[in-house]
């Protein structure tokens, strides 16, 4: 038996604007679903790790552990993290170390409660000196794209092709999102021309960016031995994890194209999982913008630097919603990605993991992809503008 932790249950709320709900209600909804799915009781939990990025700023909630204790009426150890993947990381470390057997990992965010200042908060937390100079998150994405175009000498009609490739990313993610009942943009498709038309004045447009969202997600992670004990039929093994950190200031980093943290985290995760990238058939990448998905394809190693847009162009011609990469055919962001599923920061990584669970267990309904025996899936999540990156690699577990 391996000491790798297992995901034994998962649950999430739809993402979008939950005007009438408190953050407490959202996390309760997600958490109860996960417990139900795992078929365990709250008294079975050894610990809770919950993530949020902004609750202290948006909702003036600091000790959310307290309201989880109140909801579940349990008095076990609880900790907080700033992203769902970070919470998974803490939970797995504890389980692997033998400290806990079953841990609830949750994530929640309530961004639309403070639409008036969320843009300031995001930027201030992501890169304070750029904020002081007048920067915005959107500007960071634009600057990275400019640097990409300049460094790789993309010009003339190739720029148009690149911009079309980016539009395709949005179109593809909306296509998947339209088939995901939990997604913020469920049932809404966006064609490539719409994405392009929304770009006004020579810069990226509305459909190039993930929305502002509310939502919650939760998963239950357990020791394999414990999973067998409770009679679990199928689950997901977390076979490899990697995380890395880079400078907060975008301008002081080694490069303005891509994220060093992603490259390091990816390498570590692959090494720990002992898998080749060719065996990973589904990747949930952090597409805060279409540029970020393009960059992520290169950072995780699906494409050579400067080439991802060409690969995407080929995929458009094939009319399949997969990328034919140098490492074989890969599905990316089948939940709709941050673009169409939604991006409630602290819960975003939870949606990625929930998607991997659904796909790997054949529960993804309309958007189910073919899953082969021994297939691997991966999630990649950032905190800030690539300041931190977490990569997790998963494999299906059967009793």
């Amino acid at each position: 038996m391996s000491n790798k932790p297992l995901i034994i249950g998962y649950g999430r709320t739809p993402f979008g604007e939950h005007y009438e709900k408190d953050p407490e209600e959202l996390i309760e909804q997600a958490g109860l679903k996960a417990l139900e799915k795992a078929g365990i009781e709250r008294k079975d939990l050894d610990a809770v790790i919950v993530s949020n990025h902004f609750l202290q700023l948006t909702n003036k909630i600091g000790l959310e552990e307290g309201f989880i204790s109140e909801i579940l009426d349990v008095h076990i150890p609880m900790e907080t993290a700033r992203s769902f993947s970070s919470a998974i990381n803490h939970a797995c470390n504890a389980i692997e170390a033998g400290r806990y057997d079953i841990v609830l990992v949750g994530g929640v965010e309530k961004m639309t409660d403070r639409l008036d200042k969320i843009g300031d908060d995001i930027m201030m937390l992501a890169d304070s000196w750029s904020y002081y100079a007048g920067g915005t998150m959107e500007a960071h994405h634009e600057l990275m794209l400019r640097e990409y175009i300049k460094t790789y000498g993309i010009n003339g009609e190739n720029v148009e092709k690149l911009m079309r490739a980016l539009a395709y990313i949005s179109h593809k993610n909306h296509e998947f999102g339209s088939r995901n009942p939990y997604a913020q943009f469920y049932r809404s498709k966006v064609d490539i021309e719409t994405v392009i038309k929304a770009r006004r004045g020579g810069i990226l447009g509305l459909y190039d960016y993930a929305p502002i969202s509310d939502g919650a997600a939760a998963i239950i992670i357990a020791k394999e031995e414990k999973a067998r004990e409770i009679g679990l039929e199928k689950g997901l093994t977390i076979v490899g994890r990697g995380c890395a950190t880079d400078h907060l200031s975008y301008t002081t980093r080694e490069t303005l194209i891509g994220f060093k943290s992603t490259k390091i985290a990816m390498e570590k995760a692959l090494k720990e999982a002992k898998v080749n990238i060719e065996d990973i058939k589904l990747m949930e990448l952090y597409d805060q913008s279409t540029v970020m998905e393009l960059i992520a394809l290169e950072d995780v190693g699906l494409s050579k630097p400067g080439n991802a847009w060409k690969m995407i162009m080929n995929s458009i011609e094939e009319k399949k919603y997969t990328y034919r990469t140098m490492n074989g055919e890969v599905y990316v962001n089948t939940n709709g990605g941050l673009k169409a599923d939604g991006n409630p920061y602290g819960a975003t990584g939870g949606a990625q993991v929930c998607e991997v669970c659904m796909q790997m267990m054949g529960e993804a309904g309309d958007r189910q992809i073919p899953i082969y025996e021994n297939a691997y899936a991966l999630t990649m999540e950032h905190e800030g503008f690539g300041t931190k990156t977490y990569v997790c690699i998963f494999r299906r577990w059967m009793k």
Partner: protein
Amino acid sequence: MSSEPIERRVSYISDRLRGSICPICGKRYFKPRYYCTKCGRKSIGKMMETSYIYSEGILEVCTIINEATNRFKPLQPYIYGIVTLKEGDIKVPARLTDHILNSGDEFKPEIYEGRKVVFRFRRRYASEPQEIIPTTSLTFTFADEYYPYIPYETKEPKEISEKPGIVGYAIYTSRFRIREGDMERSVPFIDEDSITAAVEAGKLALIQSALHGEKIKKIYVGTESNPYSVKPIASKVAQVLDLGEDLGDGVKGIDAIDTEFACKAATSMFKDAIALSKYMAEKGEEYFTMVIGTDNSQAAPRGQPGGELDYFVGYGAAAYIIGNMDVIAEIEGWYSSTSDTPDFWRRDGQRYPLHGGRFTGEPAYFKHIIKAAKKLMDKMNLTAKDINYFVPHQPNAKFPIRAARRLGFKDEQCLPSLKVTKFGNLYSGSSPAGLAAVLEIAKPYEKILLTSFGSGAGSDAYLITVTPKILEKRKRLEKFNIEWQSSNPYLIYVDYNTYRRFKEGI
């Protein structure tokens, strides 16, 4: 409500673009560092402080921001990008200022990227009336436009001057103008005010004098448009320009003070600066003072009480360094006149000044200027013929000529100083800017009679003799001299509504 300690710390670093250099490997950093990430432990405690406000950079990449964060909204749309500094591989985020964009226009980054830029000192973003005013130098303009790159190369002063006087000078006016009839007036960009103009002018005066900032022991800033009722501009200028001896913990060994007497707030202090230099010279010590006159000249909008002034007000600052070494113009003598004449005033808490209509001419302007100038000429045993240039306060184009004629000067002796038709009334910077215009063309040993006027009311008259040292020093600022600021292809002319919006600022 913003946090005053946070705003201060961010200003402290970004106003001057403070950084560090590793003395071992030479690696540079923006923002002060205690050790070098390359050299590690052996560099701890050895890092040298540096600043990049006099640096040149290249705009690496840029984008347009149409939807800014909340405090930047009054500035949008604007261009924002990453600037690589000429010294070492340092990149900083920065905002393009002095640039008007129309939100509908197609953004073409190629127009901007790869161009050389200079850093400018501006308000960082909008603030509420009860908050402190955040500032920064993480703003830039293109070096191939209005404001060129001029290196700051300090030199040790060499020669003790027998008579103290002007050691360096500069004026700063903005890139924007409003043109009405024959009159052009300088208009601040939306992120400018009397504080930012004072810093810009002081920075240029240091460049022209080549004097190291630490040698300046006193700074006076004369203004009537300080955005603060209580809090000096002088301390800000001293901190940004690193004036005075370093006492550690961000504290400087300098005496800094703001002065107010309407438009003569700055000229009044020339004689005090001279007296200090003279006193220290007798003890055998060098002594330098910076005197700045700065104003975002105030006027109510047209149609409101006091709105008549709105046809004349300008924006800008003049900075003078006065000392006892390497003097370019000796100050020979002075005389001041004063009476309690309420020709122009602004009560505390009022936004705009009011003036006494037709009582501003004869009983105020002419009476004080003529008495002070005449008395000084008598005292120095000189007539109008013995003096080459007459530089009076210039609230409009007519008053100075009439005053000159009444003192026996020919129009040609007064006209070179008249800049009111190019910059508008600069209030505290008005006659100092006129003096700068004359210093720009004067030959060694020529004599200048400067006579300021401040409402309330009073005049300061000075007799000034140019020395041969002026020839070398004024060359240093040739690319941004008064002639250039008066007329160049990069000036941007705005309409009345834009002028009012910019003047009110953020």
